[in-house]
């Protein structure tokens, strides 16, 4: 009993912090209340819930050899120290998602997002990562697609693979869109990001021919190069000759990114992708650590209200009411289906002991949720007037400080045009109005936090561009790596019909699949960039729905496995989050498809525009009949995509229920685990 006392105290601390957050209204709340609440809840959940799942639900066996032992090859299968593996796994799951979603969710105030991240990760997100890691670890480290195929059958396996490919496409499009929104009309940011390309090429040459394998050295050189690029970027942007060269409209940037994606993903990996990944990985980990320290040192008060009037819908950043849309807007951070692909990727092949799985699977996801909490805090310490001026589309702000100040003040968040103009000057941008996508908002907040610790207000512009660079860098790495992964998914899928397409002896299938993959995400990127509502408004919900649906699929697989293990009396552990995710995504997907509100439903929006087109009218923001037709076409594509996602998840639900019932009637366990090997004596 004694050993539980510190944990009980910690639980009380967490409960007190949450109670303060939930009850205080109208006066400034310090960000540390949120941080403390999250950390205490996470630690208690890890100590009790993760261990409960490990001991009773999964029955992890320390004496049972993991694939890293019985298939050891020193390459893919290597027994790895659990702390080292934690770092590997965390670096693989943490991306732009947990940083952007919470920033967008702040439009409803800090409270809904905080509660959803804390509850979501404990009950759904970390459980999903942990379960998939466990399932894959017991099956030689197989991938999610293979796991669904062996446990549920070939048809659901193929459906899951096709679903994963579509989700990949949407993720790449939405990530690229965030970069476009962050770099458009911003020569300083554009220069620093563009400079990473020659910098990475030089690093690639260095690791190829000069000092192969010296990752530390080359990363340090690259880091110095990045800092120089940020420092000199200011004068480049101010130069009358170079400034305009690095100034691009969103549409130009869209085409640059599509071209970049197509070229980068067929270059040899050592030349651009690998060195860029060194920079982005280490910068990401460093920036996350710095942000955590910065928030604790600064202990900033939250300026965003706990709840805004937009909880009932009608918000400018994204449409729809709190339920179900908050739960798909914060996807990564609370629960992310994409992690199922990582947890069934390299990590299960490296795990040294079954009992390391809770720390890696559950623990790393708690860490990611902590990153999401920091992003939410960052967005909430900004003046709400600035937040809404930055995140509302041009259709609302009008695009310049005066009109934006008027529009945002009318929403009930008073801000002056001078404040908006001064904030832009502070961070070295022409304008901060309608810089949607979350990344610029986070960068302004990070500049605020970092300059408080280092450099004071004079360093704000440097830190802002540092933050933009750090986000753009790992998004571009993800675009490159994701296009390569998408290519193989597509080759596998098309290979089901045309086996020759899977061949890698000829270069054509690879090139065709790469082209198709780039064209797919490029289409949605272009649609987002030209979308008068800013694109994020349209694409982020589709991304959220798809990501949460993948999570539901992973949790359904976990449920099936528990039933087949004859552990169904513990199946509530995965059934509860599955049901919640199905409720959220099916409601959100149906609303996106069928809602009669044109701000929410794609088909209603298309109908409004096609009715007007039939009358010969041109509706704002379209400026011509051709633009009207483009809007209608895009709406229908988005609607079709939503319908497809719904079909994928419903069909997998059918297969899940069927397999669970079959195993209920079967008196014996029917899981297809790899045979148990005893752990070799050390």
């Amino acid at each position, binding site marked *: 009993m004694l050993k539980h006392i510190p944990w009980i105290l910690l639980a009380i601390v967490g409960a007190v912090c949450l109670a303060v957050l939930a009850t205080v209204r109208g006066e400034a709340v310090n960000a540390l209340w949120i941080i403390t609440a999250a950390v205490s809840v996470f630690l208690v959940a890890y100590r009790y819930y993760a261990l409960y799942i490990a001991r009773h639900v999964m029955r992890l066996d320390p004496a049972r050899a993991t694939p890293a032992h019985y298939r*050891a*090859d*020193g*390459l*893919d299968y*290597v027994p*790895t*120290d659990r*702390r*080292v*593996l934690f*770092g*590997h796994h965390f*670096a*693989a*799951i*943490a*991306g*732009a*998602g947990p940083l952007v979603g919470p920033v967008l969710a702040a439009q409803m105030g800090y409270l809904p997002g905080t509660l959803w991240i804390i509850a979501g990760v404990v009950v759904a997100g970390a459980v999903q990562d942990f379960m998939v890691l466990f399932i894959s670890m017991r099956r030689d480290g197989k*991938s999610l697609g293979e796991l669904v195929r062996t446990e549920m059958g070939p048809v659901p396996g193929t459906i899951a693979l096709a679903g994963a490919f579509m989700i*990949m496409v949407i*993720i790449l499009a939405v*990530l690229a869109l965030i970069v476009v929104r962050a770099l458009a009309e911003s020569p300083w940011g554009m220069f620093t990001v563009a400079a990473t390309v020659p910098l990475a090429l030089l690093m690639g040459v260095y*690791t190829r021919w000069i000092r*192969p*394998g010296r*990752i*530390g050295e080359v990363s340090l050189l690259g880091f110095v190069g990045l800092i120089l690029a940020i420092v000199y970027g200011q004068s480049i942007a101010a130069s009358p000759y170079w400034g305009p060269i690095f100034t691009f409209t969103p549409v130009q940037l869209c085409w640059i990114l599509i071209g970049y994606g197509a070229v980068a993903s067929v270059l040899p*990996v*050592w030349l651009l*992708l*690998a060195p860029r*990944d*060194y920079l982005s*990985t*280490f910068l990401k*980990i460093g920036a996350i650590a710095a942000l955590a320290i910065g928030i604790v040192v600064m202990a900033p008060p939250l300026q965003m209200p706990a709840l805004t009037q937009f909880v009932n819908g009608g918000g400018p950043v994204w449409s729809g009411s709190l339920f179900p849309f908050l739960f798909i807007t914060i*996807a*990564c951070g609370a629960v*992310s289906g*994409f*992690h199922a*692909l*990582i947890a069934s*990727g*390299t990590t299960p092949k*490296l795990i040294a002991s079954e009992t390391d799985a809770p720390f890696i699977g559950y623990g790393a996801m708690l860490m990611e949720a902590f990153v999401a909490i920091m992003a939410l805090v960052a967005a909430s310490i900004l003046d709400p007037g600035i937040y809404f001026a930055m995140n509302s589309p041009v259709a609302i702000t009008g695009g310049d400080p005066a009109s934006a100040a008027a529009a945002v003040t009318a929403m009930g968040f008073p801000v002056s045009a001078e404040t908006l103009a001064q904030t832009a000057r502070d961070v070295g941008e022409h304008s901060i109005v309608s810089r949607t996508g979350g990344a610029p908002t986070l960068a302004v907040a990070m500049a605020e936090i970092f300059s408080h610790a280092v450099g004071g207000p004079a360093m704000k512009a440097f830190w802002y561009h540092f933050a933009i660079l750090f986000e753009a860098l790992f998004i571009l*790495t*993800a675009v490159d*790596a*994701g296009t*390569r*992964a*998408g*290519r*193989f998914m597509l080759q596998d899928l098309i290979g089901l019909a045309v086996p020759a397409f899977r061949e890698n002896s000829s270069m054509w299938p690879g090139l065709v699949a790469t082209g198709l993959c780039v064209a797919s995400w490029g289409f949605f990127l272009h649609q987002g960039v030209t979308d008068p509502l800013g694109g994020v408004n349209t694409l982020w919900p589709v*991304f959220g729905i798809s*990501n949460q649906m993948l999570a539901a699929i992973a949790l359904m697989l976990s449920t099936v496995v528990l039933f087949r293990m004859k552990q169904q009396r513990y199946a509530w552990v995965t059934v509860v989050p599955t049901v919640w995710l199905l409720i959220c995504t099916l409601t959100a997907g149906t609303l996106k498809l069928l809602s009669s509100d044109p701000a929410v439903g794609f088909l209603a929006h298309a109908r409004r525009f096609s009715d007007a087109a039939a009358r010969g009218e041109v509706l704002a923001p379209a400026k011509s009949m051709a633009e009207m037709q483009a809007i209608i076409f895009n709406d229908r594509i988005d609607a079709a995509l939503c319908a497809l996602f719904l079909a994928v998840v419903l069909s997998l639900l059918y297969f899940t229920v069927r397999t669970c019932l079959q195993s209920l009637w079967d008196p014996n366990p029917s899981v297809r685990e790899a045979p148990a090997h005893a752990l070799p004596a050390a």
Partner: protein
Amino acid sequence: MIGLKRIGEMARLMVGQPPYEAYLAHMRQHHPDRAPMGRVEFFRDREEARYGGRNGGKCC
């Protein structure tokens, strides 16, 4: 606590490079008849394995 050596190992594994020494030890113990890859060859092999796209993408 975690030592500097482990942190270096963690940083390398974050970008897909497992320790070469562990690979050498494995080869010596289990495949003494086969010549192991050299350090540089090992580095390139792991680089291709991580970034070739076969191991899935990174997260959002």
